[in-house]
């Protein structure tokens, strides 16, 4: 239903993926399914709303957040347990989604996407005419 496109399988979330010289992080996500929509919730702390790109094309959902380093110029790093850099994650969604109606909201570092499903086409009974 929703599969992930990864450069390397079993990549844990939030681990850096080195692409060229930049580090990119896969945000942790929750993906829930309701009768009428898919709900994608992703942690993208430190990205301002305008620096987040959500793209949906041909069933592929791409999340990207631009985040710059938060260390000031004259800082001396004492200990670092996590890295700060751009967020990036891609999903393949096999469910038919009404792309026009996708909504995205970013609050307190969390991106929430509602992906409404296209209503199921009702089966049509076809009359057979006999001459």
């Amino acid at each position, binding site marked *: 239903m929703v599969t992930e496109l990864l450069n390397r399988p079993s990549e844990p979330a939030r681990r850096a993926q080195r692409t060229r010289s930049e580090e990119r992080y896969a945000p942790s996500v929750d*993906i829930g399914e309701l009768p009428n929509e898919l709900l994608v919730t992703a942690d993208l702390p430190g990205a301002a709303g305008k620096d987040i790109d959500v793209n949906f094309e041909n069933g592929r959902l791409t999340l990207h957040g631009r985040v710059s380093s938060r260390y000031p110029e004259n800082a001396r790093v004492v200990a670092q347990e996590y890295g700060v850099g751009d967020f990036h994650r891609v999903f393949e969604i096999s469910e038919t989604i009404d792309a026009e109606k996708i909504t995205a909201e970013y609050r307190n570092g969390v991106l929430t996407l509602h992906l409404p499903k296209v209503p199921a086409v009702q089966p049509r009974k076809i009359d057979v005419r006999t001459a």
Partner: protein
Amino acid sequence: MLLERINGFPFLRNEVERLFGDAFENVPSAFRVIGPRAFPAVNLWEDAENAYAEAELPGLTMNDVEVLVLNDELIIRGERKASAPEGAAFHRRERNVGRFNRTVQLPVEVNAEQVAATLKDGVLTVKLAKSPAVLPRKIEVKG
């Protein structure tokens, strides 16, 4: 001081992790199992006058977090509540929820009266003024 280097990478360990870490004292650090990472992860830096601590707490506002300072320890605690809508079936559940309580050793003694914390876009930044006792004092050289 709980600051140590594992594989050349500096980590902070809180007291509880230390209990498990001691069991591996004789194991070369390259093979030491770090265990589940404490939440939240914390980055620490300093400049001449202040120490800074930063943690990622997406989805939280200042009402959900408590920041406490005691001598040279910083405590960050609170709760992240689940926000699942009724009747949702989950394909994936990676975002952790629940209570958290992290104690972090600061590199210097700080002045608990001069601590400021902000939480914006899920990033908690704590600015702690260094205690006057640890600030270098300029000695005038009389000639």
